[in-house]
């Protein structure tokens, strides 16, 4: 036998063996309800995915410890996407076919939910995304829900607050060119034009570090405030670079900014920043404080918005199991019927399209801490 065919056979054998090995699906355990999770656990977006998974784990541990589901034990199966939606489709399929999960919490990025949604629909597995904001995501898919702030609600609150309370009138917008940023930009542009003036709109790519060219252009147009449609890492850098360029305007943003990392990275530069949010970790209500304590105990750090929304998504699932039943179809009905659910990210209702209705808070960075102003 030539070396070539030898190697070919060895490879084929290894692959077949591995396939066969993994082909044995895990045994059905009685009294276990499986929750799948899909999100980026590696790659550039990993911190979002990891925090989502951690939030789910806290909710699941809590439910298992309290015995609120009777004999039913929850178990989390999580799969990595690396931030790539085509891998997310594999992850969805694997969870559904191999692990036989009953419900999925995910995907984290909008593109992941877009790719996974049809798969979940085909398999009739209810799926609730804790963070995919892309417009119209849940339309025409009765199995896909989400639990995150709608951009319209955030924008409305923020734009009105900026104009009426802060007296601002010349808006500049700087947004990430991804589904999150684009959607915020579109809504903010429309609303701000209605109330005042938009003087500059600039975009940047996911993961950019250098915003000086855009900020230089924005500075030329002489705005009195800068709306950032993006996440905290970029937000902090934008704030910092704006200060380095002597562009000292009021900074506004959405829930993507609400993470302690914004303050850690941005330091003085983000002082005075306003952002809309669904989650305020210093909220004195017991539900929020219990979550923050439990999260800190388990993971050794403060929860962020992703973790909180994932926790609430898991709580909505648990609530659906309690009110409706443990089968996938019953969970779907339960999630769809969610109304005025008291979550740690505010009262949450699911509308007929599977979208969320939630309260919006406005937070401000004061002396290196997020403070609730409204």
């Amino acid at each position, binding site marked *: 036998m030539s070396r070539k065919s030898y190697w070919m056979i060895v490879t084929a054998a290894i692959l077949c063996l591995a396939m066969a090995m993994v082909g044995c699906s895990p045994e059905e355990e009685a009294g276990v309800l499986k929750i799948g999770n899909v999100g980026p656990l*590696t790659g550039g977006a*990993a911190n979002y995915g*990891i925090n989502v998974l951690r939030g789910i784990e806290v909710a699941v541990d809590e439910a298992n410890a309290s015995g609120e589901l009777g004999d039913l034990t929850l178990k989390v199966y999580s799969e990595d996407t690396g931030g790539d939606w085509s891998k997310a489709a594999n992850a969805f399929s694997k969870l559904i076919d191999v692990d036989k999960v009953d419900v999925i919490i995910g995907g984290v990025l909008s593109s992941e939910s877009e790719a996974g949604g049809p798969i979940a629909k085909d398999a009739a597995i209810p799926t609730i995304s804790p963070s995919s904001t892309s417009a119209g995501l849940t339309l025409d898919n009765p199995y896909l829900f989400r639990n995150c702030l709608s951009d319209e609600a955030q924008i409305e609150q923020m734009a009105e607050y900026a104009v009426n309370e802060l007296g601002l009138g010349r808006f500049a917008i700087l947004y990430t060119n991804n589904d999150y940023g684009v959607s915020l930009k579109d809504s903010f542009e429309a609303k701000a034009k209605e109330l005042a003036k938009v003087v500059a709109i600039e975009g940047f790519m996911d993961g950019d570090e*250098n915003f000086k*060219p855009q900020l230089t252009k924005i500075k030329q147009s002489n705005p009195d405030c800068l709306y950032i449609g993006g996440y905290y890492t970029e937000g902090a850098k934008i704030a910092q670079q704006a200060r*380095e*360029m002597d562009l000292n305007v009021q900074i506004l943003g959405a829930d993507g900014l609400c993470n302690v990392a914004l303050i850690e*990275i941005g330091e003085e530069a983000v002082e005075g920043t306003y952002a809309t949010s669904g989650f305020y970790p210093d909220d004195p209500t017991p539900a929020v404080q219990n979550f923050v304590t439990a999260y800190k105990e388990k993971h050794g750090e403060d929860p962020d918005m992703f973790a909180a929304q994932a926790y609430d998504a898991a709580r909505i699932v648990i609530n659906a199991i309690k009110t409706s039943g443990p089968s996938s179809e019953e969970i779907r009905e339960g999630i769809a019927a969610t109304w005025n659910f008291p979550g740690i990210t505010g009262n949450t209702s699911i509308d007929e399209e599977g979208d969320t209705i939630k309260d919006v808070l406005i937070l401000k960075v004061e002396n290196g801490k997020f403070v609730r102003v409204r």
Partner: protein
Amino acid sequence: MFVQQLMNGVILGSTYALIALGYTMVYGIIELINFAHGEIYMFGAFVGLLLVTVLDIPFFLAFLLAMALGSLLGVTVEYLAYRPLRRSSRLSALISAIGASFFLSNLALLIMGSQPFSFPNPFEAKIYHTPLFIISRVEITVLLSSLILMIALTFFVQRTKIGKAMRATAQDKDTASLMGINIDRIITITFAVGSALGAAAGVMVGIYFRTVTPTMGFMPGLKGFVAAVLGGIGNIPGAMLGGILLGIAEVMGAAYISSQYRDAVAFALLIIILLFKPAGLLGRPAQEKV
């Protein structure tokens, strides 16, 4: 505004140039695209960060230590992933390099976690106004240190005995070896120096952009590679020129064309330049041996 944007481009470009130097030096000697170079850059930034925050070492010393450790990692990667493949097809070595890059960035993710770390600013935040542009103290530091490192490298390659041996090896390995040059040693030194520059770039970008993450090496690595090719891969002044030009092209693209199409503008420029100068700006056209 034009001068301000030009300054923005030069500062960004100087970090690309430092990364490009590592690529170009390695390429000049063994014609390998050292894919793991972006990860060395990330490693340098992390080492710098940990030394400054955990061990509380003065910034300048941490900078030098990060360079030293970065070069150690570069040499290790060469020894484990590239040296065994030196006699194989160049593409195999490239795949091995890609594997090494995956391995290092994901290992960093496992160890350090995914949350971005903030790099403390070792300098006081100060802004200098000139009639034409505004520049911050950090920017001056980045610009000056890149310049110093580039001058030091040019001196090293042009004036020292080892530098001479490196140039000889790059030109013709056989003849160099016949002249008594230890090729393996030269390759090791090349990796050490190139990686030290990559790590230095990591620390500088760390203080400039203020964050360090395990995946930070990917895009700058790619850009550094592009800059190296733009200047003529294997050519040291070419890498510096390529880096600066790429930085300026990006900034100008964002400023005057569209910030959305920024990278597309930079890449289109690259392709056009290559069409007119097929071996890069300063590269000499390869001589075909018939």
